[in-house]
């Protein structure tokens, strides 16, 4: 996991670290900038709001997939479970392209991951 690579943190053990609960705000801002024109600016508040939204969305979809795995007595949540969870939650327009291009997107995600590091 990307967020768990960081060095020692001054947070105490009871509080969930910000880098464990939220996506990195720089990456969120970079993704938001891809869809905007060249001279557009994004405020910090907008990035933080989007950071909260996308992090909660990830938890929302993942909990649905995890519930399915729990019922089927499986321990590993795979890509098909995520696609199924998207379809179950009503995001059908996303589930079908995800299922169809699952292999390609995994490769693209790996490439993007290398670029970000």
């Amino acid at each position, binding site marked *: 996991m*990307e*967020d768990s*690579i*960081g*060095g*020692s*943190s*001054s947070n105490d053990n*009871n*509080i*969930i*670290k*910000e*880098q464990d*609960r939220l996506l*990195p*705000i*720089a*990456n969120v*801002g*970079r993704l938001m*900038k891809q869809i905007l024109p*060249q*001279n557009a*600016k*994004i405020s*910090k*508040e907008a990035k*933080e*709001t989007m950071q*909260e*939204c*996308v992090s*909660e*969305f990830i*938890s*929302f979809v993942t*909990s*649905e997939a995890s*519930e399915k795995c729990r019922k089927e007595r499986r321990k590993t949540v795979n890509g098909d479970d995520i696609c199924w969870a998207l379809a*179950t*939650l*009503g*995001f*059908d*327009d*996303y589930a079908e392209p995800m299922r169809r291009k699952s292999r390609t997107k995994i490769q693209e995600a790996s490439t993007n991951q290398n*670029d*970000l*590091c």
Partner: protein
Amino acid sequence: MKPFLLSHPDTMYNCSQVYCSHSLAHTSYPCGDPYFGSSIVAYGTQAITQQMVPQMLGLASTRIALPVELAEDGPIYVNAKQYHGILRRRQSRAKLKAQNKLIKSRKPYLHESRHRHALKRVRGTGGRFLSAKQLQQFNAELVTDAHSGPGPVNVYQKKDASEAESHPSRTGKNASITFTAISGLTSMSGNSVSFRRPEHNFLGNSPNIGGSSQCSGGLTFGGGARQCTSVGR
């Protein structure tokens, strides 16, 4: 108390059943339901109400609302498919809040040592950090006569130059400090190109160091901003 910004009610299909959950009827958590899908045709003669709900991308479409429970300030309408997921997420967040594990406020930086390191770095004209060609992640040796801009030696650096031109004063010093911490988390390899590229996106001209900023706003259903009054279990 940190407000949840994910109150985005949305419904599409009509359902003859009305889900009644008394155990969560008194919880004051808003729905954690960001819905990024496109508009779906709403049908059914048993439509309860129709409302115009603006989506995240600014599109407006008519949705059929499905009342699932009563909140303090009126009903919150959600997608029937997402009802159980929303309740599950509410329980998870309430559990974390009961254990007092959610962060109260955003800190301007994650690591004290990196924050101090960023404060010690020399800034040139325009507020940018002065750096040598081979910038090390830690123990960077600063020289005063080094040029602050990257040379267009490859695609990434050329893209950096264009992005730096288009966003000269994008963020302040606070954001640059935040970036310094995040880049330490995300960069494992010693690739100076990937490290140099985001740097120009986030360095700014503002000399102020802001405190921890509260995240506010977001979509609000109904009138006014939603205040989350939580009662610990």
